[in-house]
């Protein structure tokens, strides 16, 4: 319906009209042979009625496509994919992309989306109204992009899905579940390497959910987590997806991060982890996507492979370049290495610095405990 009309609100109203008509007609006339086509065709006429009544001045009647030839191969799954690409169109504001995806694709209410993104429902509703108006006025098409654009457009979609996943990391497991559901849908409909890689990454992270915080809500670092509690079934699925992604053409940063997560997930303990291979994967990841955050993660892996002083030197080099100075995790990582080296006063300073920059409560509690222990 949205594809036919190019207008979310008009499509919703028209479909409601069509359902109302169905409730009236079907008991009398019998259920039509193809109920979906009947609803869409009726909805289209109802939309034209609404336009005729002049309730919308924006779209003219001529804008309503006349042909319905493709309703026969109308496929619900394909439709969801079109909807995702429309909601994640780069011409929409990034916040609106996330909000539209959660509302229109996942079916969350405006209130639920607002709560997850720490904003008020009216602000979010405003953002959604603006996005819908742009889809209609600039005529953002309701379609899956063609090959030459697909990779770039898919990257935006995957980014939105990963944002949703990360938003739920500590406090909103329901968002994590929604993100994984979206990831599965994408892999099913569009099995591109990076879509598979992202699903694997989310599954592998999510497999550790139960062991990530104490009952009191303190973050438990990877090396202290109870590995017996990790979701083995989910890890198995994630690892299989990593192998599938690595075997297909065009894999990238999500697949590489998933491969690293897979090595962690399969290791019996932190010291028994294959740090050599993890450092190697970070090297490849850095070449694919140079970023100081990845450099930081690589430094932490080097510390595990070669000793804390080697990791510390790399971290200090990042800071010396003036990068990540406001990023709490670099100071926390630095503090951990100083602690392992027995340089207590410096470690204390670094933890204090990290604490001042940390917002999430579980992370704050862990740093506070470390400070007390020192």
């Amino acid at each position, binding site marked *: 319906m949205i594809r036919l009309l190019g207008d979310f609100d008009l499509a919703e109203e028209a479909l409601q009209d069509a359902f109302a008509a169905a409730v009236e007609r079907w008991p009398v006339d019998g259920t039509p042979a193809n109920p979906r086509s009947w609803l869409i065709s009726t909805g289209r006429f109802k939309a034209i009625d609404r336009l005729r009544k002049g309730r919308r001045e924006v779209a003219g009647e001529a804008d309503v496509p006349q042909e319905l030839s493709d309703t026969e191969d109308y496929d619900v799954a394909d439709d969801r994919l079109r909807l995702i690409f429309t909601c994640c169109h780069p*011409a929409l504001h990034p916040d609106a992309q996330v909000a539209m995806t959660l509302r229109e694709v996942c079916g969350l209410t405006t209130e639920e989306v607002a709560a997850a993104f720490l904003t008020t429902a009216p602000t979010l509703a405003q953002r959604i109204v603006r996005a819908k108006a742009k889809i209609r*006025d*600039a*005529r*953002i*098409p309701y*379609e899956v*992009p063609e090959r030459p654009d697909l990779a770039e457009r898919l990257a935006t979609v995957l980014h939105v899905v990963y944002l949703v996943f990360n938003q739920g990391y500590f406090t909103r497991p329901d968002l994590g579940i929604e993100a994984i559901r979206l990831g599965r849908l994408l892999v099913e409909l569009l099995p591109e390497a990076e879509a598979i890689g992202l699903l694997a990454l989310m599954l592998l992270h999510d497999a550790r959910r139960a062991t990530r915080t104490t009952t009191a809500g303190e973050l438990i670092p990877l090396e202290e987590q109870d590995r017996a509690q990790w979701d083995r079934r989910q890890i198995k699925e994630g690892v299989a997806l990593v192998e599938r992604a690595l075997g297909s053409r065009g894999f990238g940063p999500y697949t590489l991060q998933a491969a690293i997560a897979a090595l962690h997930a399969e290791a019996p303990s932190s010291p028994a982890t294959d740090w050599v291979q993890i450092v190697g994967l970070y090297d490849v990841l850095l070449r694919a996507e140079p970023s100081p955050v990845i450099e930081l993660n690589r430094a932490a892996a080097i510390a595990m492979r070669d000793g804390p002083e080697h990791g510390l030197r790399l971290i200090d080099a990042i800071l010396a370049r003036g990068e990540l100075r406001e990023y709490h995790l670099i100071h926390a990582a630095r503090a951990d290495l100083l602690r392992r080296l027995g340089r207590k006063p410096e470690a204390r300073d670094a933890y204090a610095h990290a604490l001042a920059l940390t917002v999430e409560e579980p992370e704050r509690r862990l740093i506070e405990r470390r400070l007390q222990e020192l």
Partner: protein
Amino acid sequence: MKYLCLVYQEEKQEANVPQDVIEQAKKDYWAFTEDIKKSGHYIGSNGLKHTDAATTVRVRNGKLSATDGPFAETKEQLGGYFLIEAKDLNDAIQVAARIPSAKWGSIEVRPVWG
């Protein structure tokens, strides 16, 4: 649907561009325009003289004021436009991306009323 592609680029930089690069840009513009005429996208286009030739006109309380210069000082200035007919925004974005200035300036794509 009609879209206006507004071409923005830095006027100040143009003085530093070597002659052969300017000649190549002219050729690229000509080829691009011929291309979108053939594909049926083209409706009209013009290049604009620099903003130092611009006059901004306002009428407030019935009183006309005409002042020197563009209405706003920006890093990149409006230097021309293409009015195109496109299937949808994706189609319009594809056309806009082929405007030679997209490589050094910015193209604002605006749907046209009606």
